[in-house]
């Protein structure tokens, strides 16, 4: 789950002792004018979960409350990278001397936390890695040792940080600690700025929390940005089903992420277009009735492939759910089954006797038939 800049700064960075500019979060142009009166000359920053705000005109300066009202009025309601701007953050205007980059993430190769620091702030870190590798430092954290001020000193050794060195040596361990305490997948300060007045502050912050750890941080998780979802996707999420709506016309109901993706791939291979991703593997395999309703509620669906290959998921349990739901919904959509694995004899019998439909032996044949029926 992702967080807006103002939440990341106020709820995570500031409590960890990492300095942030004075700021006020505003949901209207009028609020912005009041905030600017308190802050003085300021920046008005669109609060959207994307890094493309600046280029899109979502970050602008305002000297007076009147200007702040006008600028905030222009930014609120903008659509940036598909996200509508619902609020702005007004921040005191900072005179920047230098910009740095700091981040904590997890490294899938070493399977350790990774601390990244670069003297090239404001730039995308991948670009720095490609063009200025000497400016980028990385440290794979040994969990027994953690990442303290000494480790930070070693990481920063030899870099030209000017008067910011001491502050940065304190900020990096604080960032590491707070990233761990909130189960951050990524916590990135870009830029981490040295100001003309000598302060070092986080001017922007990108925060992604581990969805699987939300239960450990319920208060913070409640402030996450809502995922952009269609109504059907939201309905699926509410039922604990991972449903992704696509623009094709062949509905997909399969178990397991890999098999579901593959079913979509074979639909494409046969010249069709999948209408959704929806997997009912893992613990969700008992939810096939709810899943079927979801797939059929998608207005684009002209035919349906049900592809089960049971390992953990029992195909008889899934098939029973589908057959029951099908009889109740009585949809006017042709359906094509392929069923193998755990419980297949019973599953095939249920489909044959319950729906009068003969499952295809090969998944490719079921998909081919569904693609043709959708034409």
């Amino acid at each position, binding site marked *: 789950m992702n967080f807006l800049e103002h939440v990341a700064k106020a709820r995570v960075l500031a409590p960890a002792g990492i300095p942030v500019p004075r700021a006020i979060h505003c949901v209207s142009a009028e609020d912005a004018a009041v905030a600017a009166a308190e802050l003085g000359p300021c920046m008005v920053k669109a609060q959207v979960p994307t890094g493309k705000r600046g280029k899109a005109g979502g970050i602008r300066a305002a000297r007076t409350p009147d200007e702040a009202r006008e600028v905030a009025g222009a930014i609120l309601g903008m659509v940036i990278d598909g996200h509508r701007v619902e609020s702005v953050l007004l921040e005191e205007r900072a005179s920047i001397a230098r910009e740095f980059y700091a981040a904590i993430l997890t490294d899938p190769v070493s399977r350790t936390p990774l601390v990244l620091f670069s003297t090239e702030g404001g730039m995308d870190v991948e670009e720095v890695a490609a063009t200025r590798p000497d400016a980028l430092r990385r440290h794979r954290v040994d*969990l027994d040792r953690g990442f303290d001020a000494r480790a930070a000193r070693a990481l920063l050794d030899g870099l030209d940080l000017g008067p910011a060195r001491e502050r940065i040596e304190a900020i990096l361990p604080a960032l590491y600690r707070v990233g761990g305490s909130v189960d951050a997948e990524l916590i990135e300060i870009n830029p981490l700025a040295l100001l003309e007045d000598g302060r070092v502050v986080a001017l922007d912050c990108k925060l992604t929390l581990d969805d699987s750890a939300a239960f450990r941080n319920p208060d913070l998780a409640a402030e996450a940005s809502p995922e952009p979802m269609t109504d059907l996707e939201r309905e699926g999420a509410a039922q604990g089903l991972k449903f992704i709506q696509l623009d094709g016309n062949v509905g997909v109901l399969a178990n397991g992420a*890999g098999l579901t993706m593959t079913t979509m791939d074979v639909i494409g291979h046969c010249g069709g277009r999948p209408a959704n991703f929806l997997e009912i593997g893992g613990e969700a395999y008992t939810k096939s009735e709810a899943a079927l309703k979801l797939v059929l509620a998608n207005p684009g669906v002209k035919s349906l492939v049900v592809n089960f290959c049971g390992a953990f998921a029992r195909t008889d349990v899934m098939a029973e759910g589908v057959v029951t739901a099908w009889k109740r919904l009585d949809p006017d959509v042709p359906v094509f089954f392929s069923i193998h*694995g755990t419980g297949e004899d019973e599953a095939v019998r249920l489909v044959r006797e319950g729906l009068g439909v003969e499952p295809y032996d090969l998944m490719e044949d079921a998909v081919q038939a569904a693609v043709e029926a959708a034409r």
Partner: protein
Amino acid sequence: MTIYRQNARVLVQGLTGKQGSFWTEKMLGCGTQVVAGVNPKRAGEAHLGLPVYATAREAMVGTPFDWAVMFIPPAAAKAAAIDAIEAGTKTLVVLTEHIPMRDVLAIHHAARAHGTRIVGPNTAGVVTPGEGFVGIMPGHNPNIFQPGEIGVISRSGSLGTLVCLNLTRSGYGQSAFLGIGGDPMIGTTTRDALMVLDQDAHTRAVVLVGEIGGAMEEEAAEYAAGMSKPVVSFIAGRASPPGKTMGHAGAIVSGDRGSYAGKRAALEAAGIAVADTPNELPDLLHSALGQPAPRAAGLALHTGA
């Protein structure tokens, strides 16, 4: 120890639960040498005829084991994994999905310190047809798994099952199925699994079943380029939209990273034939091995499970 051998003794953590019991019976029925279970609340009892211990460490003293497999929910997974690792299990199969990332890091850290092989998290387990299986795979279904000489690696349990079914029908039995897991940070990577099968005397060729996201197939391709055993592959996710997590936490394309095209190109550059559909894999194997399948399929359909 990544390929299960029948002389290896297996501990089931969470033995007495619904899934633990169901799958332990299947494992035992398939020949897997399950020797004991763990449930702190039922220590001292017997379940399915097996002794139950409070911890893996106690089990190791009373009933030594080589492998451990976890039927444990996400919030308790870290403690259970570290218990098994510290008990001295050689291999630990982590079936659990949605373990917090920070806990996964701690598990891998402990495993490194103790030299434990981790399979998973979020794996369906491993199958050695004719010897047994560890996990939640239909290893007991003869329509799907038959002893043979093809090693199969898969991030996905369901897709891996389909691929083994296709192989078995075409007359290709399997030397080992290695389910490595759908998480982004797994203990046995595609490359690790490929090295295991490369060194396995019973394996003549490898089917590598990958999916979009991460860079594991690319890393495996580097290794495969130097292998003498043939490798063929299928990568799931060609039709998946970028920027969305496709069920598995590891299956996401961000920017150019983890894309289908990138993986396919890396595998093909290493001389690996990539199938458009799983059904093409037996034909690709046939070409790679330069001879037809060792025996005709001739298996009755819908008779197993």
